Protein backbone atom coordinates (compact mmCIF):
# COMPACT_ATOMS: atom_id res chain seq x y z
CA UNK A 1 0.00 0.00 0.00
CA UNK A 2 1.69 3.16 -1.15
CA UNK A 3 0.94 6.72 -0.33
CA UNK A 4 1.85 9.64 -2.54
CA UNK A 5 1.02 12.98 -1.02
CA UNK A 6 1.51 16.51 -2.25
CA UNK A 7 0.17 19.29 -0.08
CA UNK A 8 0.28 22.91 -1.14
CA UNK A 9 -1.37 25.11 1.46
CA UNK A 10 -0.17 28.68 0.82
CA UNK A 11 -2.13 29.99 3.84
CA UNK A 12 0.14 28.01 6.12
CA UNK A 13 3.21 28.29 3.88
CA UNK A 14 3.29 24.55 3.34
CA UNK A 15 4.47 22.88 0.15
CA UNK A 16 5.40 19.27 0.81
CA UNK A 17 5.63 16.10 -1.22
CA UNK A 18 6.17 12.77 0.51
CA UNK A 19 5.91 9.16 -0.50
CA UNK A 20 5.44 6.19 1.75
CA UNK A 21 5.99 2.68 0.45
CA UNK A 22 3.75 -0.22 1.32
CA UNK A 23 4.45 -1.41 4.87
CA UNK A 24 6.79 1.47 5.55
CA UNK A 25 6.71 3.72 8.61
CA UNK A 26 7.83 7.26 7.94
CA UNK A 27 8.55 9.65 10.79
CA UNK A 28 7.83 13.31 10.14
CA UNK A 29 10.13 15.43 12.24
CA UNK A 30 10.37 19.16 12.43
CA UNK A 31 10.01 22.20 14.65
CA UNK A 32 6.57 23.50 15.63
CA UNK A 33 4.82 25.13 12.72
CA UNK A 34 6.89 23.24 10.16
CA UNK A 35 3.77 21.83 8.54
CA UNK A 36 3.63 18.34 10.06
CA UNK A 37 0.04 18.59 11.23
CA UNK A 38 -0.99 20.10 7.91
CA UNK A 39 0.41 17.07 6.10
CA UNK A 40 -1.57 14.74 8.37
CA UNK A 41 -4.76 16.76 7.94
CA UNK A 42 -4.38 16.62 4.15
CA UNK A 43 -3.83 12.86 4.28
CA UNK A 44 -6.82 12.36 6.60
CA UNK A 45 -9.04 14.52 4.42
CA UNK A 46 -9.89 16.99 7.17
CA UNK A 47 -8.12 19.69 5.17
CA UNK A 48 -8.51 20.21 1.46
CA UNK A 49 -5.29 21.72 0.15
CA UNK A 50 -5.42 24.53 -2.36
CA UNK A 51 -3.09 22.54 -4.52
CA UNK A 52 -2.24 18.94 -3.96
CA UNK A 53 -2.92 15.32 -4.47
CA UNK A 54 -3.24 12.30 -2.22
CA UNK A 55 -3.07 8.86 -3.78
CA UNK A 56 -3.32 5.74 -1.63
CA UNK A 57 -2.91 2.35 -3.32
CA UNK A 58 -3.60 3.92 -6.68
CA UNK A 59 -6.86 5.46 -5.47
CA UNK A 60 -6.99 9.23 -5.70
CA UNK A 61 -8.28 10.58 -2.38
CA UNK A 62 -7.58 14.24 -2.95
CA UNK A 63 -7.08 15.64 -6.41
CA UNK A 64 -8.40 17.80 -9.16
CA UNK A 65 -11.01 15.27 -10.13
CA UNK A 66 -12.47 14.71 -6.74
CA UNK A 67 -12.26 14.52 -3.00
CA UNK A 68 -12.94 11.42 -0.92
CA UNK A 69 -14.41 12.42 2.48
CA UNK A 70 -12.49 11.34 5.61
CA UNK A 71 -14.79 8.46 6.48
CA UNK A 72 -14.39 6.76 3.10
CA UNK A 73 -10.57 6.98 2.94
CA UNK A 74 -9.56 4.11 5.21
CA UNK A 75 -7.08 6.46 6.81
CA UNK A 76 -7.15 6.31 10.62
CA UNK A 77 -5.80 9.06 12.83
CA UNK A 78 -4.36 8.64 16.29
CA UNK A 79 -3.78 11.95 18.05
CA UNK A 80 -1.87 13.06 21.10
CA UNK A 81 -5.05 12.78 23.17
CA UNK A 82 -6.68 9.35 23.04
CA UNK A 83 -10.12 10.96 22.49
CA UNK A 84 -11.97 7.81 23.49
CA UNK A 85 -15.72 8.38 23.20
CA UNK A 86 -16.69 8.99 26.83
CA UNK A 87 -20.19 7.53 26.47
CA UNK A 88 -19.00 4.15 25.19
CA UNK A 89 -17.21 1.37 27.03
CA UNK A 90 -13.62 0.60 26.07
CA UNK A 91 -14.81 -2.42 24.09
CA UNK A 92 -17.43 -0.43 22.19
CA UNK A 93 -14.86 2.28 21.48
CA UNK A 94 -12.67 -0.29 19.76
CA UNK A 95 -15.69 -1.87 18.06
CA UNK A 96 -16.64 1.53 16.63
CA UNK A 97 -14.50 1.11 13.52
CA UNK A 98 -15.74 -2.40 12.65
CA UNK A 99 -19.34 -1.28 13.26
CA UNK A 100 -18.83 1.68 10.92
CA UNK A 101 -17.47 -0.71 8.30
CA UNK A 102 -20.84 -2.44 8.43
CA UNK A 103 -19.96 -5.46 10.56
CA UNK A 104 -22.53 -6.77 13.02
CA UNK A 105 -22.40 -6.04 16.73
CA UNK A 106 -21.09 -9.50 17.67
CA UNK A 107 -18.40 -9.70 15.02
CA UNK A 108 -17.33 -6.15 15.82
CA UNK A 109 -16.98 -6.88 19.52
CA UNK A 110 -15.04 -10.05 18.82
CA UNK A 111 -12.57 -8.21 16.63
CA UNK A 112 -12.42 -5.37 19.19
CA UNK A 113 -11.47 -7.85 21.88
CA UNK A 114 -8.78 -9.29 19.64
CA UNK A 115 -7.28 -5.83 19.04
CA UNK A 116 -7.43 -5.00 22.73
CA UNK A 117 -5.44 -8.18 23.34
CA UNK A 118 -2.98 -7.10 20.70
CA UNK A 119 -2.16 -3.97 22.73
CA UNK A 120 -2.29 -5.78 26.10
CA UNK A 121 -5.48 -4.03 27.17
CA UNK A 122 -8.05 -6.84 26.99
CA UNK A 123 -8.68 -6.54 30.74
CA UNK A 124 -9.99 -3.00 30.23
CA UNK A 125 -12.79 -4.05 27.87
CA UNK A 126 -15.67 -3.35 30.26
CA UNK A 127 -14.27 -0.14 31.72
CA UNK A 128 -15.38 3.37 30.91
CA UNK A 129 -12.79 5.69 29.33
CA UNK A 130 -13.16 8.06 32.30
CA UNK A 131 -11.88 5.38 34.67
CA UNK A 132 -8.59 4.41 33.05
CA UNK A 133 -5.16 6.06 33.02
CA UNK A 134 -3.74 8.15 30.19
CA UNK A 135 -1.36 5.39 29.12
CA UNK A 136 -4.13 2.79 29.11
CA UNK A 137 -6.41 5.14 27.18
CA UNK A 138 -3.76 5.65 24.51
CA UNK A 139 -3.32 1.86 24.21
CA UNK A 140 -7.06 1.55 23.69
CA UNK A 141 -6.92 4.35 21.11
CA UNK A 142 -4.24 2.40 19.24
CA UNK A 143 -6.45 -0.69 19.25
CA UNK A 144 -9.41 1.38 18.09
CA UNK A 145 -7.46 2.84 15.17
CA UNK A 146 -6.17 -0.59 14.11
CA UNK A 147 -9.59 -2.22 14.43
CA UNK A 148 -10.86 0.14 11.73
CA UNK A 149 -8.58 -1.79 9.34
CA UNK A 150 -7.00 1.35 7.88
CA UNK A 151 -4.86 1.24 4.75
CA UNK A 152 -2.89 4.13 6.18
CA UNK A 153 -2.37 4.97 9.82
CA UNK A 154 -1.55 8.52 10.90
CA UNK A 155 0.00 9.03 14.32
CA UNK A 156 0.22 12.58 15.63
CA UNK A 157 2.70 12.61 18.52
CA UNK A 158 1.04 9.57 20.10
CA UNK A 159 3.26 9.65 23.17
CA UNK A 160 3.61 13.37 23.77
CA UNK A 161 0.85 13.53 26.39
CA UNK A 162 2.03 10.49 28.34
CA UNK A 163 4.15 10.24 31.48
CA UNK A 164 7.74 9.44 30.71
CA UNK A 165 7.24 6.33 32.82
CA UNK A 166 4.60 4.78 30.54
CA UNK A 167 5.87 6.01 27.16
CA UNK A 168 8.51 3.28 26.69
CA UNK A 169 5.98 0.47 27.13
CA UNK A 170 3.58 2.02 24.62
CA UNK A 171 6.48 2.59 22.24
CA UNK A 172 7.24 -1.13 22.43
CA UNK A 173 3.62 -1.95 21.68
CA UNK A 174 3.61 0.41 18.72
CA UNK A 175 6.83 -1.11 17.48
CA UNK A 176 5.10 -4.47 17.41
CA UNK A 177 1.78 -3.44 15.87
CA UNK A 178 3.17 -0.96 13.35
CA UNK A 179 5.49 -3.46 11.72
CA UNK A 180 4.42 -4.07 8.11
CA UNK A 181 1.88 -1.25 8.19
CA UNK A 182 1.87 1.91 6.14
CA UNK A 183 2.27 4.64 8.72
CA UNK A 184 3.04 8.33 8.92
CA UNK A 185 4.23 9.26 12.39
CA UNK A 186 4.63 12.84 13.55
CA UNK A 187 6.98 13.04 16.47
CA UNK A 188 9.35 15.27 18.40
CA UNK A 189 11.19 12.38 19.93
CA UNK A 190 14.22 10.98 18.20
CA UNK A 191 13.69 7.66 19.96
CA UNK A 192 10.36 7.27 18.17
CA UNK A 193 11.99 7.99 14.86
CA UNK A 194 14.81 5.56 15.57
CA UNK A 195 12.74 2.69 16.91
CA UNK A 196 9.44 3.00 15.07
CA UNK A 197 10.29 4.45 11.68
CA UNK A 198 12.09 3.04 8.68
CA UNK A 199 12.56 6.43 7.18
CA UNK A 200 12.72 9.99 8.48
CA UNK A 201 11.43 13.07 6.68
CA UNK A 202 12.44 16.37 8.26
CA UNK A 203 10.23 19.37 7.58
CA UNK A 204 11.21 22.95 8.18
CA UNK A 205 9.20 26.01 7.31
CA UNK A 206 6.79 24.02 5.19
CA UNK A 207 9.43 22.29 3.08
CA UNK A 208 11.10 18.88 3.15
CA UNK A 209 14.72 19.50 4.16
CA UNK A 210 15.84 15.90 4.70
CA UNK A 211 14.60 12.50 3.68
CA UNK A 212 16.33 9.20 4.27
CA UNK A 213 16.64 6.04 6.36
CA UNK A 214 16.22 6.84 10.09
CA UNK A 215 19.65 5.73 11.21
CA UNK A 216 21.33 7.64 8.42
CA UNK A 217 19.49 10.92 8.94
CA UNK A 218 19.94 10.78 12.69
CA UNK A 219 23.58 9.76 12.69
CA UNK A 220 24.65 12.15 9.93
CA UNK A 221 22.10 14.96 10.11
CA UNK A 222 22.43 17.70 7.55
CA UNK A 223 19.63 19.99 8.68
CA UNK A 224 19.99 21.97 11.91
CA UNK A 225 16.77 20.50 13.28
CA UNK A 226 17.80 16.90 12.69
CA UNK A 227 21.16 17.69 14.21
CA UNK A 228 19.54 19.19 17.26
CA UNK A 229 17.18 16.32 17.97
CA UNK A 230 19.62 13.57 17.00
CA UNK A 231 22.74 12.91 19.00
CA UNK A 232 21.40 10.20 21.28
CA UNK A 233 24.03 7.94 22.70
CA UNK A 234 23.73 4.40 21.44
CA UNK A 235 25.73 1.35 22.41
CA UNK A 236 25.02 -1.87 20.53
CA UNK A 237 25.93 -5.21 22.01
CA UNK A 238 24.73 -8.40 23.69
CA UNK A 239 22.39 -8.63 26.70
CA UNK A 240 24.11 -10.26 29.68
CA UNK A 241 23.00 -10.13 33.34
CA UNK A 242 21.03 -6.89 33.07
CA UNK A 243 23.73 -5.12 31.12
CA UNK A 244 24.60 -4.46 27.54
CA UNK A 245 28.01 -5.87 26.73
CA UNK A 246 29.14 -3.47 24.06
CA UNK A 247 30.94 -4.58 20.93
CA UNK A 248 33.74 -2.22 21.98
CA UNK A 249 34.12 -3.89 25.35
CA UNK A 250 32.13 -1.54 27.61
CA UNK A 251 29.28 -2.82 29.79
CA UNK A 252 26.25 -0.64 30.43
CA UNK A 253 23.51 -1.47 32.87
CA UNK A 254 20.08 -0.34 31.83
CA UNK A 255 16.35 -0.88 31.95
CA UNK A 256 14.94 -3.27 29.42
CA UNK A 257 12.10 -1.32 27.87
CA UNK A 258 10.48 -4.48 26.64
CA UNK A 259 9.88 -7.77 28.37
CA UNK A 260 13.32 -9.14 29.23
CA UNK A 261 15.58 -9.78 26.28
CA UNK A 262 17.08 -13.28 26.32
CA UNK A 263 20.68 -13.56 27.52
CA UNK A 264 23.00 -13.20 24.57
CA UNK A 265 20.37 -11.44 22.46
CA UNK A 266 21.48 -8.45 20.40
CA UNK A 267 20.27 -5.23 21.97
CA UNK A 268 20.98 -1.55 21.90
CA UNK A 269 21.37 0.74 24.92
CA UNK A 270 20.13 4.27 24.35
CA UNK A 271 20.61 7.31 26.58
CA UNK A 272 20.49 11.04 26.21
CA UNK A 273 23.62 13.21 26.40
CA UNK A 274 21.85 15.26 29.08
CA UNK A 275 21.72 12.17 31.32
CA UNK A 276 25.52 11.85 31.31
CA UNK A 277 27.73 13.35 34.03
CA UNK A 278 31.45 13.83 33.52
CA UNK A 279 34.16 13.17 36.15
CA UNK A 280 37.92 12.98 36.21
CA UNK A 281 37.86 9.90 38.44
CA UNK A 282 35.23 7.18 38.46
CA UNK A 283 32.77 8.06 41.26
CA UNK A 284 33.25 5.29 43.83
CA UNK A 285 30.44 3.14 45.19
CA UNK A 286 27.79 4.71 42.99
CA UNK A 287 25.15 2.74 41.10
CA UNK A 288 26.07 4.54 37.92
CA UNK A 289 27.62 3.16 34.79
CA UNK A 290 31.13 4.47 34.39
CA UNK A 291 32.73 4.64 30.98
CA UNK A 292 36.36 5.65 30.66
CA UNK A 293 36.68 7.74 27.53
CA UNK A 294 38.90 10.29 25.85
CA UNK A 295 37.41 13.66 24.94
CA UNK A 296 37.54 14.16 21.18
CA UNK A 297 35.64 17.38 20.77
CA UNK A 298 33.78 20.18 22.55
CA UNK A 299 31.04 22.12 20.87
CA UNK A 300 28.41 24.62 21.95
CA UNK A 301 24.97 23.08 22.22
CA UNK A 302 22.28 25.62 23.01
CA UNK A 303 23.38 27.20 26.27
CA UNK A 304 25.34 24.08 27.16
CA UNK A 305 28.52 22.40 26.02
CA UNK A 306 28.37 19.06 24.24
CA UNK A 307 31.39 16.94 25.14
CA UNK A 308 32.07 14.32 22.51
CA UNK A 309 34.12 11.21 23.14
CA UNK A 310 34.11 9.01 20.06
CA UNK A 311 30.49 8.13 19.37
CA UNK A 312 29.32 9.09 22.86
CA UNK A 313 28.33 12.56 24.01
CA UNK A 314 27.55 14.37 27.25
CA UNK A 315 25.86 17.71 27.78
CA UNK A 316 27.32 19.92 30.52
CA UNK A 317 26.75 23.45 31.66
CA UNK A 318 29.45 25.86 30.53
CA UNK A 319 30.48 26.24 34.18
CA UNK A 320 31.00 22.50 34.74
CA UNK A 321 32.93 22.18 31.51
CA UNK A 322 35.21 25.01 32.62
CA UNK A 323 35.70 23.56 36.13
CA UNK A 324 36.64 20.18 34.67
CA UNK A 325 39.10 21.94 32.38
CA UNK A 326 38.05 19.78 29.46
CA UNK A 327 39.90 19.74 26.16
CA UNK A 328 40.33 17.21 23.37
CA UNK A 329 42.66 14.42 24.48
CA UNK A 330 41.76 14.62 28.20
CA UNK A 331 40.80 11.28 29.72
CA UNK A 332 37.52 11.45 31.68
CA UNK A 333 34.76 9.21 32.96
CA UNK A 334 31.23 9.40 31.56
CA UNK A 335 28.74 8.33 34.24
CA UNK A 336 25.09 7.58 33.60
CA UNK A 337 22.46 6.12 35.93
CA UNK A 338 21.11 2.74 34.89
CA UNK A 339 17.59 4.20 35.14
CA UNK A 340 18.41 6.65 32.36
CA UNK A 341 19.48 3.91 29.97
CA UNK A 342 16.84 2.23 27.84
CA UNK A 343 17.58 -1.13 26.32
CA UNK A 344 15.83 -2.31 23.18
CA UNK A 345 16.05 -5.45 21.11
CA UNK A 346 17.39 -4.80 17.65
Amino acid at each position, binding site marked *: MTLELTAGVPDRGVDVTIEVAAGETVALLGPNGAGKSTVLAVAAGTLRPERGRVVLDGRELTGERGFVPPH*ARRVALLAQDPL*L*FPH*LSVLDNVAFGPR*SLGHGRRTSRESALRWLGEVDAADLADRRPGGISGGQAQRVAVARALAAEPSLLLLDEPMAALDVAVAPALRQTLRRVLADRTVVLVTHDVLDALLLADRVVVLDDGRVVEDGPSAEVLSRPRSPFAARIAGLNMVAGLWRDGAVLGDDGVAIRGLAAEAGPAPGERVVAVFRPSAVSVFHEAPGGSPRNSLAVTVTDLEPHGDQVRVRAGHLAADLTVQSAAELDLAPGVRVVFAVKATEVYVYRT
Partner: protein
Amino acid sequence: MIPRWVYAPAALGVALVLLPLAGMASRVAWGDFVDLVTSDSALTALSLSLRTSLVSTVLCVLLGVPMALVLARTEFPGQGVLRSLVLLPLVLPPVVGGIALLYTFGRRGLLGDELDLLGVQVAFSTTAVVLAQAFVSLPFLVVSLEGSLRSAGQRYEVVAATLGASPTTVLRRVTIPLVLPGLVSGAVLAFARSLGEFGATITFAGSLEGTTRTLPLYIYNLRVTDPDAAVAMSLVLVVVAVVVIGLAPQRPRRTGGLR
Protein backbone atom coordinates in the same frame (compact mmCIF):
# COMPACT_ATOMS: atom_id res chain seq x y z
CA MET B 1 -15.16 34.48 48.17
CA ILE B 2 -17.96 36.91 47.54
CA PRO B 3 -18.58 40.05 49.64
CA ARG B 4 -21.03 39.49 52.49
CA TRP B 5 -23.40 42.26 51.40
CA VAL B 6 -24.12 40.36 48.17
CA TYR B 7 -26.29 37.99 50.21
CA ALA B 8 -28.81 40.74 50.98
CA PRO B 9 -29.89 41.54 47.39
CA ALA B 10 -29.60 37.85 46.54
CA ALA B 11 -32.05 37.00 49.32
CA LEU B 12 -34.33 39.81 48.12
CA GLY B 13 -34.30 38.27 44.65
CA VAL B 14 -35.17 34.83 45.98
CA ALA B 15 -38.01 36.45 47.97
CA LEU B 16 -39.29 38.12 44.82
CA VAL B 17 -39.64 34.71 43.21
CA LEU B 18 -40.85 32.68 46.18
CA LEU B 19 -43.05 35.18 48.07
CA PRO B 20 -45.76 35.35 45.37
CA LEU B 21 -45.84 31.57 45.27
CA ALA B 22 -46.32 31.52 49.04
CA GLY B 23 -48.99 34.20 48.72
CA MET B 24 -50.81 32.06 46.21
CA ALA B 25 -50.44 28.91 48.28
CA SER B 26 -51.90 30.79 51.29
CA ARG B 27 -55.10 31.41 49.30
CA VAL B 28 -55.64 27.79 48.32
CA ALA B 29 -59.00 26.51 49.56
CA TRP B 30 -57.64 23.17 50.76
CA GLY B 31 -61.09 21.85 51.70
CA ASP B 32 -62.26 21.89 48.11
CA PHE B 33 -58.87 21.45 46.52
CA VAL B 34 -59.37 17.92 45.21
CA ASP B 35 -62.82 18.71 43.83
CA LEU B 36 -61.55 21.90 42.19
CA VAL B 37 -58.61 20.31 40.41
CA THR B 38 -60.47 17.18 39.35
CA SER B 39 -63.49 18.91 37.81
CA ASP B 40 -64.15 17.84 34.24
CA SER B 41 -63.15 21.14 32.69
CA ALA B 42 -59.98 21.30 34.83
CA LEU B 43 -58.91 17.81 33.78
CA THR B 44 -59.72 18.59 30.15
CA ALA B 45 -57.52 21.69 30.27
CA LEU B 46 -54.70 19.90 32.06
CA SER B 47 -54.74 16.99 29.64
CA LEU B 48 -54.84 19.35 26.64
CA SER B 49 -51.90 21.28 28.06
CA LEU B 50 -49.79 18.18 28.63
CA ARG B 51 -50.60 16.69 25.22
CA THR B 52 -49.97 19.85 23.22
CA SER B 53 -46.78 20.63 25.16
CA LEU B 54 -45.51 17.12 24.52
CA VAL B 55 -46.23 17.37 20.78
CA SER B 56 -44.67 20.82 20.54
CA THR B 57 -41.58 19.57 22.40
CA VAL B 58 -41.22 16.72 19.91
CA LEU B 59 -41.62 19.26 17.11
CA CYS B 60 -38.96 21.46 18.72
CA VAL B 61 -36.54 18.51 18.91
CA LEU B 62 -37.19 17.46 15.31
CA LEU B 63 -36.63 20.99 14.00
CA GLY B 64 -34.32 22.40 16.67
CA VAL B 65 -31.61 19.72 16.57
CA PRO B 66 -30.94 20.27 12.85
CA MET B 67 -31.09 24.05 13.40
CA ALA B 68 -28.55 23.89 16.23
CA LEU B 69 -26.30 21.65 14.11
CA VAL B 70 -26.38 24.08 11.20
CA LEU B 71 -25.69 27.02 13.50
CA ALA B 72 -22.90 25.32 15.47
CA ARG B 73 -21.16 23.24 12.82
CA THR B 74 -21.30 25.27 9.63
CA GLU B 75 -20.32 28.73 8.48
CA PHE B 76 -22.12 30.76 5.87
CA PRO B 77 -22.67 34.43 5.15
CA GLY B 78 -25.48 35.92 7.19
CA GLN B 79 -25.31 33.22 9.84
CA GLY B 80 -25.17 35.74 12.67
CA VAL B 81 -28.25 37.56 11.37
CA LEU B 82 -30.09 34.28 10.94
CA ARG B 83 -29.27 33.23 14.50
CA SER B 84 -30.61 36.52 15.88
CA LEU B 85 -33.81 36.17 13.88
CA VAL B 86 -34.35 32.57 14.96
CA LEU B 87 -33.95 33.62 18.58
CA LEU B 88 -36.41 36.49 18.16
CA PRO B 89 -39.31 34.67 19.91
CA LEU B 90 -37.21 34.75 23.10
CA VAL B 91 -37.64 38.51 23.37
CA LEU B 92 -40.83 39.04 21.39
CA PRO B 93 -44.06 39.51 23.40
CA PRO B 94 -45.96 36.23 22.82
CA VAL B 95 -49.07 38.12 21.75
CA VAL B 96 -47.06 39.58 18.85
CA GLY B 97 -46.00 36.04 17.96
CA GLY B 98 -49.66 35.05 17.99
CA ILE B 99 -50.59 37.87 15.61
CA ALA B 100 -47.70 36.91 13.32
CA LEU B 101 -48.88 33.30 13.28
CA LEU B 102 -52.45 34.37 12.64
CA TYR B 103 -51.48 36.39 9.59
CA THR B 104 -49.41 33.51 8.28
CA PHE B 105 -51.54 30.42 8.93
CA GLY B 106 -54.93 32.08 9.47
CA ARG B 107 -57.69 31.98 6.85
CA ARG B 108 -56.74 35.43 5.49
CA GLY B 109 -53.04 34.90 6.21
CA LEU B 110 -50.01 34.48 3.96
CA LEU B 111 -50.57 30.73 3.50
CA GLY B 112 -54.34 30.88 4.15
CA ASP B 113 -55.42 30.23 0.54
CA GLU B 114 -53.00 27.37 0.07
CA LEU B 115 -54.09 25.76 3.32
CA ASP B 116 -57.73 26.32 2.37
CA LEU B 117 -57.17 24.46 -0.90
CA LEU B 118 -55.79 21.56 1.06
CA GLY B 119 -58.84 21.73 3.27
CA VAL B 120 -56.77 22.52 6.32
CA GLN B 121 -57.96 24.99 8.94
CA VAL B 122 -55.13 25.81 11.29
CA ALA B 123 -56.22 28.86 13.28
CA PHE B 124 -58.36 28.22 16.36
CA SER B 125 -57.56 24.50 16.33
CA THR B 126 -55.41 22.29 18.52
CA THR B 127 -52.80 22.41 15.75
CA ALA B 128 -52.65 26.17 16.29
CA VAL B 129 -51.97 25.61 19.99
CA VAL B 130 -49.04 23.34 19.14
CA LEU B 131 -47.70 25.79 16.54
CA ALA B 132 -47.92 28.69 18.98
CA GLN B 133 -46.13 26.68 21.66
CA ALA B 134 -43.41 25.50 19.25
CA PHE B 135 -42.95 29.08 18.00
CA VAL B 136 -42.12 30.39 21.47
CA SER B 137 -40.25 27.28 22.71
CA LEU B 138 -37.97 26.49 19.77
CA PRO B 139 -35.31 29.10 20.66
CA PHE B 140 -34.87 27.59 24.14
CA LEU B 141 -33.91 24.25 22.66
CA VAL B 142 -31.74 25.75 19.92
CA VAL B 143 -29.79 27.99 22.31
CA SER B 144 -29.20 25.22 24.84
CA LEU B 145 -28.13 22.69 22.23
CA GLU B 146 -25.96 25.04 20.20
CA GLY B 147 -24.01 25.84 23.37
CA SER B 148 -23.52 22.15 24.11
CA LEU B 149 -22.41 21.45 20.54
CA ARG B 150 -19.87 24.25 20.63
CA SER B 151 -18.40 23.23 23.96
CA ALA B 152 -18.25 19.56 22.94
CA GLY B 153 -16.10 20.58 19.96
CA GLN B 154 -15.46 18.58 16.84
CA ARG B 155 -12.45 16.50 17.83
CA TYR B 156 -14.44 13.37 18.62
CA GLU B 157 -16.32 13.77 15.36
CA VAL B 158 -13.09 13.95 13.37
CA VAL B 159 -11.78 10.81 15.06
CA ALA B 160 -15.06 9.01 14.39
CA ALA B 161 -14.89 9.98 10.71
CA THR B 162 -11.33 8.66 10.36
CA LEU B 163 -12.57 5.40 11.88
CA GLY B 164 -14.88 5.08 8.89
CA ALA B 165 -18.12 6.48 10.30
CA SER B 166 -20.32 8.29 7.78
CA PRO B 167 -21.63 11.74 8.78
CA THR B 168 -24.99 10.24 9.74
CA THR B 169 -23.31 7.57 11.87
CA VAL B 170 -21.15 10.22 13.53
CA LEU B 171 -24.25 12.25 14.34
CA ARG B 172 -26.12 9.25 15.72
CA ARG B 173 -23.33 7.51 17.62
CA VAL B 174 -21.05 10.36 18.68
CA THR B 175 -22.47 13.88 18.42
CA ILE B 176 -25.94 13.29 19.86
CA PRO B 177 -24.77 11.08 22.76
CA LEU B 178 -22.10 13.66 23.66
CA VAL B 179 -24.57 16.55 23.77
CA LEU B 180 -27.42 14.51 25.26
CA PRO B 181 -27.44 16.44 28.57
CA GLY B 182 -27.74 19.71 26.65
CA LEU B 183 -30.44 18.24 24.44
CA VAL B 184 -32.43 16.96 27.41
CA SER B 185 -32.23 20.23 29.31
CA GLY B 186 -33.16 22.10 26.14
CA ALA B 187 -36.16 19.84 25.61
CA VAL B 188 -37.22 20.23 29.23
CA LEU B 189 -37.00 24.01 28.93
CA ALA B 190 -39.02 23.89 25.71
CA PHE B 191 -41.65 21.70 27.39
CA ALA B 192 -41.89 24.03 30.37
CA ARG B 193 -42.17 27.06 28.11
CA SER B 194 -44.91 25.32 26.06
CA LEU B 195 -46.79 24.45 29.22
CA GLY B 196 -46.84 28.07 30.30
CA GLU B 197 -47.62 29.53 26.86
CA PHE B 198 -50.51 31.99 26.96
CA GLY B 199 -50.30 35.09 24.75
CA ALA B 200 -49.58 33.52 21.37
CA THR B 201 -52.08 30.75 22.06
CA ILE B 202 -55.02 32.97 22.94
CA THR B 203 -54.31 35.23 19.95
CA PHE B 204 -53.77 32.50 17.37
CA ALA B 205 -55.81 29.61 18.75
CA GLY B 206 -58.47 31.24 20.87
CA SER B 207 -59.89 29.71 24.02
CA LEU B 208 -62.25 26.87 23.08
CA GLU B 209 -62.80 24.33 25.82
CA GLY B 210 -61.36 20.94 24.91
CA THR B 211 -59.75 22.21 21.71
CA THR B 212 -57.52 25.17 22.50
CA ARG B 213 -58.18 26.09 26.14
CA THR B 214 -54.94 25.01 27.76
CA LEU B 215 -54.34 25.26 31.49
CA PRO B 216 -53.03 28.87 31.51
CA LEU B 217 -56.04 29.98 29.44
CA TYR B 218 -58.39 28.06 31.71
CA ILE B 219 -56.91 29.72 34.79
CA TYR B 220 -57.17 33.15 33.17
CA ASN B 221 -60.85 32.48 32.41
CA LEU B 222 -61.56 31.31 35.95
CA ARG B 223 -59.78 34.07 37.83
CA VAL B 224 -62.90 36.30 37.93
CA THR B 225 -65.71 33.74 37.99
CA ASP B 226 -64.13 31.18 40.32
CA PRO B 227 -60.98 32.52 42.04
CA ASP B 228 -60.69 29.43 44.25
CA ALA B 229 -60.52 27.14 41.24
CA ALA B 230 -58.05 29.50 39.54
CA VAL B 231 -55.73 29.42 42.56
CA ALA B 232 -56.00 25.64 42.89
CA MET B 233 -55.18 25.09 39.21
CA SER B 234 -52.31 27.59 39.45
CA LEU B 235 -50.84 25.49 42.22
CA VAL B 236 -51.13 22.43 40.00
CA LEU B 237 -49.24 24.26 37.26
CA VAL B 238 -46.53 25.31 39.75
CA VAL B 239 -46.12 21.71 40.88
CA VAL B 240 -45.92 20.45 37.29
CA ALA B 241 -43.33 23.15 36.48
CA VAL B 242 -41.24 22.25 39.53
CA VAL B 243 -41.32 18.57 38.59
CA VAL B 244 -40.28 19.38 35.00
CA ILE B 245 -37.40 21.62 36.09
CA GLY B 246 -36.35 18.96 38.60
CA LEU B 247 -36.01 16.48 35.73
CA ALA B 248 -33.59 18.70 33.84
CA PRO B 249 -29.90 17.85 34.30
CA GLN B 250 -28.51 20.54 36.57
CA ARG B 251 -24.96 20.18 35.39
CA PRO B 252 -23.54 18.86 32.14
CA ARG B 253 -22.13 15.39 32.55
CA ARG B 254 -18.38 15.29 32.87
CA THR B 255 -16.83 13.96 29.71
CA GLY B 256 -14.16 11.49 30.67
CA GLY B 257 -10.85 10.96 28.92
CA LEU B 258 -10.21 14.66 28.53
CA ARG B 259 -7.51 16.54 30.28
